[in-house]
């Protein structure tokens, strides 16, 4: 009988091991040989592509013009470099610096903005092809923190550092508008402790950065549904917007409590009110009118040229619906705290290679 029990245990262990295998390969469930094989091929092919792209990346110098069928995968697949840097940061994050100062992102320092000089663009980027408006979805803070073995709020703090670096780069390289997706209407379902932390982090960052932003001629605008935000945060937002409203170098738009559908809905309500008041006729409603009613009317370039999403997710998640009609999308594999300058340069280079035709024909 003892023997029988041992056999049972052995069988259970084997089944358990299989489930671990199936979970890693295709998300769990019973073991189907054919499905297992196809998913293995998929992973192998992904890895094979990744290796080929690594080889290509190293062989082709950045000065050579791109081949006619430009392979986006070259820029989208994760880099070996970033992997060992991630390992290095895992090690570094356990250094004594971490205690008391919070966690740093991979590439940025804790220092505030450096002096506002015009920096020359890195090699390979052409100044006349730089996008005017860049939008960023800062995804992956939670996953980054989990990979490092930290708490989610450390991930958000590291995310703020990374954002600081990107804002600095945009100011230096002549990008005129930067929109960041900080908090979506869908994020309200997260645990209350995380939401409270995020909003208080946002408030603290705004207060501490106000001086540096004003000094660097950066204008901040906040868009989104502000009805659910706490009053203290609203006060800080109003103050920051007032103080920076005349700055011209870079406009930083932060989307808090924002979703693309909500934006179109509130534009629709505004238009309906104007129709009711007799200001416009129903037949006069067209795209330009809606564009003027959207919340992105705070800037003169409401349509992003480039949208960057980190953490490898291939979707837009309801951010900037109307404005993304002709935006070039770039999906980066690394998490947001690791994105930094290298990732940004890659995204910009990929953008500059693309041919934008807006539905017409490239003659």
């Amino acid at each position, binding site marked *: 009988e003892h023997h029988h029990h041992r056999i049972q245990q052995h069988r259970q262990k084997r089944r358990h091991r299989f489930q671990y295998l199936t979970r890693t390969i295709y998300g769990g469930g019973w073991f189907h040989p054919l499905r297992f094989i196809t998913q293995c091929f998929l992973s192998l092919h992904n890895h094979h592509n990744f290796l080929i792209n690594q080889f290509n990346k190293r062989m082709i110098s950045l000065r050579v013009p791109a081949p006619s069928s*430009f392979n986006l995968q070259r820029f989208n697949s994760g880099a070996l470099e970033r992997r060992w840097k991630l390992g290095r940061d895992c090690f570094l994050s356990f250094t004594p610096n971490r205690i008391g100062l919070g966690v740093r992102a991979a590439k940025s320092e804790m220092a505030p903005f450096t002096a506002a000089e015009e920096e020359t663009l890195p090699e390979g980027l052409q100044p006349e092809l730089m996008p005017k408006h860049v939008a960023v979805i800062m995804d992956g803070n939670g996953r980054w923190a989990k990979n490092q073995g930290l708490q989610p709020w450390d991930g958000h703090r590291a995310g703020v550092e990374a954002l600081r670096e990107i804002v600095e780069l945009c100011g230096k390289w002549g990008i005129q508008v930067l929109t960041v997706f900080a908090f979506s209407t869908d994020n309200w379902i997260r645990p209350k402790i995380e939401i409270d932390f995020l909003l208080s982090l946002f408030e603290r960052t705004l207060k501490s950065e106000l001086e540096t932003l004003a000094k660097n001629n950066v204008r901040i605008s906040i868009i989104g549904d502000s009805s659910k935000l706490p009053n203290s945060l609203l006060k800080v937002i109003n103050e920051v917007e007032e103080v920076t409203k005349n700055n011209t170098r870079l406009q930083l738009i932060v989307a808090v409590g924002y979703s693309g559908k909500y934006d179109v809905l509130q534009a629709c309500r505004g238009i309906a009110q104007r129709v009711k008041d007799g200001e416009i006729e129903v037949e006069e409603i067209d795209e330009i009118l809606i564009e003027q009613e959207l919340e992105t009317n705070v800037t003169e370039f409401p349509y992003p040229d480039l949208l960057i999403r980190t953490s490898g997710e291939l979707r837009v998640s309801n951010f900037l619906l109307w404005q993304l009609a002709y935006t070039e999308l770039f999906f980066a594999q690394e998490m947001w705290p690791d994105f930094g300058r290298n990732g940004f340069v890659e995204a910009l280079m990929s953008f500059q290679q693309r041919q934008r035709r807006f539905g017409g024909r490239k003659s």
Partner: protein
Amino acid sequence: MGGEVRQLLEQIHRFSRRCLFRVLSMGPLPTHLAFIMDGNRRYAKKRGLEDGSGHKAGFSTLMSMLQYCYELGIKYVTIYAFSIDNFRRKPEEVQSLMDLMLEKIKSLLDEESIVHEYGIRVYFIGNLGLLNDQVRAAAEEVMKATAKNSRVVLLVCVAYNSTDEIVQAVKRSCVDKADRDVERIQLVDIEENMQMSVAPEPDILIRSSGETRLSNFLLWQTGNSQLFSLDALWPEIGLRHLVWAILNFQRSHSYLEKRKKQL
């Protein structure tokens, strides 16, 4: 002799495809697939063919893709046939495209067409008033003729722009709610006035020819769909690309479902 061999090969292909689809259907399958059929002209130029033949090759690729989708059991398929921005091209090109569309729409009504084979219900989405009368009449005829079919659905977007669709929906909801309180306009009011409300949101959006942008297609509906950008031009797209997209969809599906349950 040659014909028999070909038939035999076709039978083998069909059988192996059925096996492959059986394996794929072990995992979660998308209900709604959307395609942006980009790259026909580049294909014609690459092969050195004359200008119009790229689109003809694209049409035959479309037919085979539809066949694979419906065999796999995907209920809704949306394709981006012609955009309002494409009217800005040269008039001869636009005219030849319109002629091709007229010919193909009329062929959908034939007995042996794919519509009757799979019981497809066809919708034509877009600002049909911008098309010329013949094409519009043919489109409406097809919509009426297939209205009784209910197995699978094909949505063809002609003279379509997502911003235009949203403008029409806003206009209609303003008119509907003119007498009531403006604050009561909700998301569902706009959504039910959209032309694409006959289908659920797409699970996957596939764009051929390597461009990674939406080009004013289904902006409202693709908020949560996976975007795949394939490097091949549209006439070069085949079964392997579809299988690839679905496998990738299945990989991230469990994570997505977890997130959706949280919502």
